[in-house]
């Protein structure tokens, strides 16, 4: 029998193969006995084969971008299809200050804030001190003895410089930045003819070969080992070729990334010189923070590279399909945690010629307007002529869960202990990437499994799912509203009150009112009415037919209504919470809806399972929990 099975990766299987071979091809017999000499030799042979197979397997895994695990290899494979992974991004703050020069003996015409450190965090910020820099000098004129430095963008990190002298005799010369954690968007490169030359030429970072000629002063970057970067200059065909003896000066920022976000108090630590290069150190005002530091990001993860590199390659720097936009937006706006894009033809009514983009940034719920304008301009380079890009503010759809968990009291230290584990597991699930993205789906069965697997004492759980959207009303003016859930509503009772809302007041009515629904006979549509509460279980309808509800589409429309106040607020804004049970317990984040599991509004009730614990094997005192109860009339 030939030794044919060489695909094994298991030591014991390899050993068995060798034994089988010996059994049919040799007159030795003792291979079956562990103490024999032959067994020792077989072990060595099998181990050698095992190591070879393992290495071959690892090597073949690392050859393909889908299966590679080492960052260096993933980056290298992405490089082959023209993708440069996003670097760590420095947090950016916007500050203003002024310098009073009236006390100076000389009367300067202008002051220059030198590149490098400008300010540091005042006191300690999370037990750390952070430095904020500018990548280039900023000069301000002195008017009436005062120089204003307004709206200066400062970037968190350590400002570093590296210099290289081009050696054409060394064909293997590399220009590598030795410090990791570089923000590549802040790399500044200038080249002088020689180190003693006083004239320098600024080089621009280029990401592709478009519009690059043999005279273009450009450089390219690529990520190398240990998250460091290498600069690559032109070859005389694409970009100017450097000459022997050229002196390259590189300044860059090595940043702490996301840790630098949220700094809102600074003290000045920069260097200011006047037009005669004299250092100015007096008359510097306190720093006003216009925008606290934000936008700091970690380097692009291996998973993200694997996801976006093929997409960017297929998009070929052109935004044509929705997935092209989804690939390109994170490239030009690294703070995007999740992006959803759909064409105008998909909306109701259709809006042809438009592309709608929703972005969930890492920090905060919405993208600032200034960033949207900038993104629009940047996307024009990629998009098809005539296509209008529109940014939609994020619309959140919240999933709330009402859990009743049965547990065996004999196996649990306490109900609170089990509850805390469940709560922790739900929080982990809520924070996972399975939910926090566009097109996410709340998977009911998986959720139940998470709860059941939380502790050995849990015997079962009854989980009711509620979906909620928050309406931000325009106060003191008539407006009509349309709230889309993207998921069909479940009609629990034909007597109405399937939707629950928080309270609000409308002009002309004294009482706090709530929204209620009444299904039509077709049970597909219905009407909305306003009611007030006489008691928690007793409602009185105060106004009928103030809107419509479509249970199939999951849509509520309110006719023009003047809302004057609400009982609930979120971050200072008045909101009306409107919730209902979904028809399917799997809730999806449709189109621009961003799905989130709302832990704060979810409840966990612990009930002892008297049957499993043996306290009441007949189940006479077993507390039954309804899976379908409609709950209270309004949201508390």
């Amino acid at each position, binding site marked *: 029998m030939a030794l044919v099975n060489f695909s094994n990766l298991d030591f014991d299987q390899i050993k068995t193969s060798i034994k089988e071979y010996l059994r049919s091809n040799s007159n030795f*017999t*003792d291979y079956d006995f562990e*103490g024999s*000499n032959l067994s020792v030799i077989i*072990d060595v042979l*099998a*181990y050698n084969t095992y190591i070879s197979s393992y290495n071959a397997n690892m090597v073949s895994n690392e050859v393909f971008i889908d299966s590679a695990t080492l960052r260096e290899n993933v980056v290298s494979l992405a490089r082959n299809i023209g993708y440069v992974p996003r670097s760590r991004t420095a947090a950016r703050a916007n500050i203003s200050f002024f310098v009073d020069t009236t006390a100076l003996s000389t009367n300067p015409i202008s002051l220059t804030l030198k590149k490098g450190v400008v300010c540091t965090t005042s006191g300690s910020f999370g037990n750390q001190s952070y430095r904020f820099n500018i990548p280039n000098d900023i000069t301000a004129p002195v008017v009436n003895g005062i120089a204003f430095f307004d709206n200066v963008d400062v970037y968190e990190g350590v400002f570093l410089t590296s210099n290289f002298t081009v050696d054409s005799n060394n064909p293997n010369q590399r220009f590598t930045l030795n410090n990791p954690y570089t923000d590549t968007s802040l790399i500044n490169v200038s080249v002088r003819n020689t180190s003693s030359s006083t004239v320098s030429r600024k080089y621009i970072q280029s990401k592709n070969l478009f519009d690059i000629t043999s005279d273009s002063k450009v450089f390219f970057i690529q990520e190398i080992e240990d998250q460091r970067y290498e600069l690559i200059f032109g070859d005389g065909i694409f970009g100017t070729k450097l000459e022997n003896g050229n002196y390259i000066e590189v300044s860059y920022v090595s940043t702490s990334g996301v840790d630098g976000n949220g700094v809102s108090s600074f003290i000045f630590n920069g260097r200011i010189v006047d037009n005669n290069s004299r250092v100015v150190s007096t008359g510097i005002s306190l720093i006003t923070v216009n925008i606290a530091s934000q936008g700091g990001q970690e380097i692009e993860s291996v998973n993200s590279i694997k996801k976006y590199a093929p997409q960017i390659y297929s998009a070929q720097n052109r935004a044509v399909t929705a997935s092209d936009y989804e690939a390109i937006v994170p490239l030009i706006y690294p703070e995007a945690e999740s992006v959803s894009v759909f064409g105008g033809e998909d909306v109701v009514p259709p809006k042809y010629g438009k592309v709608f983009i929703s972005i969930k940034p890492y920090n905060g719920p919405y993208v600032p307007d200034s960033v949207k304008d900038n993104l629009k301009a940047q996307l024009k380079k990629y998009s098809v002529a005539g296509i209008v890009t529109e940014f939609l503010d994020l619309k959140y759809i919240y999933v709330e869960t009402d859990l009743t968990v049965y547990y065996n009291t004999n196996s649990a230290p306490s109900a609170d202990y089990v509850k805390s584990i469940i709560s922790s597991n739900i929080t982990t699930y809520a924070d996972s990437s399975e939910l926090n993205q566009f097109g996410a789906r709340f998977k009911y069965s998986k959720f139940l499994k998470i709860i059941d697997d939380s502790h050995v004492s849990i015997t079962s759980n009854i989980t009711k799912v509620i979906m909620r959207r928050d309406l931000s009303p325009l106060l003191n003016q008539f407006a009509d509203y349309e709230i889309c859930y993207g998921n069909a509503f479940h009609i629990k009772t034909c007597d109405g009150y399937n939707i629950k809302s928080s309270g609000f007041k409308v002009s002309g009515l004294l009482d706090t009112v709530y929204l209620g629904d009444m299904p039509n006979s077709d049970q597909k549509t219905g009407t909305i009415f306003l009611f007030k509460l006489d008691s928690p279980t007793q409602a009185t309808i105060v106004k009928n037919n103030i809107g419509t509800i479509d249970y199939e589409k999951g849509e509520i429309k309110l006719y023009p209504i003047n809302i004057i106040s609400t009982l609930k607020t979120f971050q200072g804004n008045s909101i009306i919470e409107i919730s209902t049970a979904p028809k399917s317990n799997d809730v999806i984040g449709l189109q621009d809806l961003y799905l989130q599991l709302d832990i704060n509004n979810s409840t966990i009730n612990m009930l002892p399972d008297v049957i499993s614990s043996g306290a009441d094997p007949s189940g006479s005192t077993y507390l039954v929990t309804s899976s379908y109860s409609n709950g209270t009339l309004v949201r508390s």
Partner: protein
Amino acid sequence: MPLERVSQGFKDISMSFQVNPLTFDLIATKNETAIARSLRNLVFTLPGERFFNQNLGSKVSRSIFENIDDISASILSNEIRNTIKNYEPRVDVIAVDVSPNYDDGEFNVTIRYKIIGVDALPQQLSFALQSTR
């Protein structure tokens, strides 16, 4: 009447890797010699020494650095007996005698065993366990 198990013989390779001058084959060890070698291998193999088989071998090395007395000898005897019982199914151990040799600082081991399925007299294997480093 129960069937009597008769082995066709045992044949193992010799670790000396010497070549038979006539046939140019590697020298093989057979039957009693092969089994004696196997027993010796098992006793002198430390647990964890063989790939992916952490338990194979005996822990005699732990005991030979203990005081040379009858208690240590008894521990060694049990360890050797258990090892053979677990990993050498071809023999039936009759006795494992371990006697301390105070003068030379070693234990003299004699294993007496019967080979199962072979028509041969009971065998005896003797060696010394010394606390050499």
